[in-house]
């Protein structure tokens, strides 16, 4: 049991370190977790990585990758994180959209899109969630109807929501309802489309935290060619599963307030009895609990890396990550603000310790508990896929989509 690289991994790490030392930016990097920040800088860095084969290490060489292993990608990510690199608005496209296009489109389409996406010249977004279906993606209502002019084209109408990066995306993959007369999973079809086409309108969502990292996307009579269809008509659900399978490996750490921030802040916050918050026994117990949770996740990621390093599929333990981190961060931020007393209501970063990391985490944590699978859905996933418990009773399974109970 140790944390050492294997000889091959150590050699790869040395090679990556040397390349980064010569090529990575030494200053800059906006660290904006929600948006793309400086898009031009991000694109320039992506192009550099692509030219050296580091943009998608696990992709085959003919696609511009290195035919490398997942552990090599992890090693690169670890080393890259030591530099102030720009944000990465390409991950959703390269991790999910482009592999889907490559799997289901013809050779010409693949040829057209893979290279520019890899080099950061074109950005992709994934258009799945809708106002009527966040957790329940198969409840999508956005309609695609084949034009009656004999062209074979499809006309798309509807709305997507929570689309990350739509505001600067060039292309997207969109799941649409093509047959409402069959049960929901059977009547959907996937397309790729040009986000600059007429009838596509992107509007930023104003989050409760004040930021705008996500978008609503409206489709009004957007016309796409039948050749833009990914997979067979009615097979959209199966295609979407391929997209989601390609979700990147969850071996990165969480951002936001952590136990070290709390420890540092609690040292200097006075309490009513003239001591500091860090001397408060109740606070110390909470700090111990958060330490165990955050460090437990770090070591869980090390277990995942170990499986990758041994050429194995990571075990299900990585599924606990977001439930634990989102809730621990929420509790920690909430407690840290409480310690400030009345001063805690102030939301001026320059008047707050650690530039207000507790306040920003406090306002962002409710979103973190929902994004990428709610706490409740993640518990269902652990119960069903890890523990093998039965799926929920589905009242809509054998009902035609048009007859499904929908509320509003």
């Amino acid at each position: 049991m140790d944390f050492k690289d294997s000889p091959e991994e150590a050699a790869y790490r040395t090679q990556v370190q040397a390349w980064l030392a010569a090529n990575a930016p030494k200053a800059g990097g906006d660290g904006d977790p929600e948006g793309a920040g400086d898009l031009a800088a991000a694109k320039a860095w992506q192009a550099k990585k692509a030219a050296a084969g580091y943009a998608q290490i696990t992709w085959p060489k003919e696609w511009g990758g290195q035919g490398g292993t997942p552990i090599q990608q992890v090693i690169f990510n670890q080393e890259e994180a030591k530099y102030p690199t720009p944000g990465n608005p390409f991950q959703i496209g390269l991790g999910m959209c482009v592999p889907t296009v490559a799997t289901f489109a013809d050779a010409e389409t693949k040829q057209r899109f893979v290279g520019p996406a890899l080099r950061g010249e074109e950005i992709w977004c994934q258009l799945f969630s809708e106002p009527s279906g966040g957790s329940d993606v198969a409840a999508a209502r956005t309609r695609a109807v084949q034009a009656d002019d004999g062209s074979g084209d499809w006309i798309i109408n509807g709305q997507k929501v929570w689309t990350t990066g739509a505001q600067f995306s060039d292309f997207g993959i969109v799941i649409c309802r093509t047959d409402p007369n069959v049960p929901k999973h059977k009547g959907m079809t996937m397309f790729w489309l040009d986000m600059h086409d007429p009838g596509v309108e992107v509007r930023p969502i104003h989050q409760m935290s004040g930021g705008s990292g996500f978008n609503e996307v409206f489709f009004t009579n957007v016309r796409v060619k039948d050749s833009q269809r990914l997979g067979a008509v009615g097979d959209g659900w199966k295609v979407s599963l391929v997209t989601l399978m390609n979700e990147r490996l969850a071996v990165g750490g969480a951002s936001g307030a952590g136990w070290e921030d709390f420890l540092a802040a609690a040292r200097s916050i006075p309490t009513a009895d003239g001591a500091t918050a860090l001397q408060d026994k109740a606070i110390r117990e909470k700090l111990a609990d958060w330490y165990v949770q955050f460090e437990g996740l770090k070591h869980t990621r090390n277990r995942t890396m170990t499986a990758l390093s041994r050429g194995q599929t990571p075990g299900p333990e990585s599924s606990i990550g977001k439930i634990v981190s989102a809730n621990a961060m929420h509790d920690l931020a909430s407690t840290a603000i409480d310690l400030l007393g009345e001063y805690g209501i102030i939301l001026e970063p320059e008047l707050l310790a650690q530039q207000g990391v507790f306040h920003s985490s406090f306002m962002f944590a409710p979103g973190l508990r929902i994004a990428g699978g709610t706490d409740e859905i993640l518990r269902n996933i652990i119960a069903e896929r890890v523990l093998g418990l039965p799926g929920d009773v589905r009242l809509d399974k054998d009902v035609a989509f048009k007859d499904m109970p929908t509320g509003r």
Partner: protein
Amino acid sequence: MNFDFSDDQKFLKSEARKFLEANCSTAKVRAVLNDDAKTYDEALWKGVAGQGWLGCAIPEEFGGLGLGHVELCAIAEELGRVVAPIPFASTVYLLAEAVLLAGTEAQKAEILPKIAAGEIIGALATSEGPGATTAANLKATVNGGKLTGTKIPVTDGDIADVAVVLANEGGKPALFLVDLNAGGVTREALKTLDPTRDAAKLVFKDAPAQRLGDAGDGLALLERILDRAAVLLAFEQCGGADRALEMAKEYALERYAFGRVIASYQAIKHKLADMYVKNELARSNAYYGAWALNTNAPELPIAAAAARIAGTEAFWFASKENIQTHGGIGFTWEMDCHLYYRRARQLELVAGAPRVWKERLVSQLERRNAA
């Protein structure tokens, strides 16, 4: 990155599981539970000695197998899984580790081979009453090599041959090795929350005592011993917590209510998912503890505290929610749920309560992350 058991260690672990499945069914555990006169499973103890587990981490020169502590962690997990009714923790995690850590060559040569051979049982005697034992309230005293005082409770005190005892000498706490079969020791068996583990009150009257470690170093040395034991106990806790989750899952998949298995209700699914989350956090923290223990890393005090806190939380939660998942039948003596509920609390208190470990963890973090 190599943060898992090796193939050899996994093999050892699966062999241990097979051995315990054959030799430590819950019927065997219940035989100890239901019989006040039976303090531990002697046949299992002999079998475990025969497997060499008692000397797993004891060097070969002292009659052990000379394997590492990661191997011992693997065995600990399997023992925890079956709530083994034997004095393994007292003898191996506490007595053997104490002697390995602080014993003179003569003490090592005297005690370790007997532990490895299964000839003696150990115990740690620190508690004298409710709450924590501190330099301020410690009463047991050693004068001229003779110990006088009362220790209550002493886990496995009724069956132990050698105890590590905390007592004052010259006004300062130190640790002592005491032969419980020599004169000056009176034992009184105690009823406990977990009758599958023995405990007793020990009264010492001029009992011969040999100092372990330096004079006046008792509390610091005790902390170092408990750091080592905490990691091993955390693996027992992981094993027990995993088994409690399995029991809950097995029952939820066969029990019907309102026309469907109860495992199909989200109230049950989410409860079991929460158990899984805590168990995995405990396992990851325990692995870090195993690494620190095996390499004698400076991080050991922090790693041990985290492993112990997470292990305690996971086993407590899994053992109580396993009863809840079973419903009424889980509250009966005949179901095995309470064996795990009892053991969870025994393991939680045997080497210091969670509150103590949380304070130790934060004190260490404060020092390490000094402003």
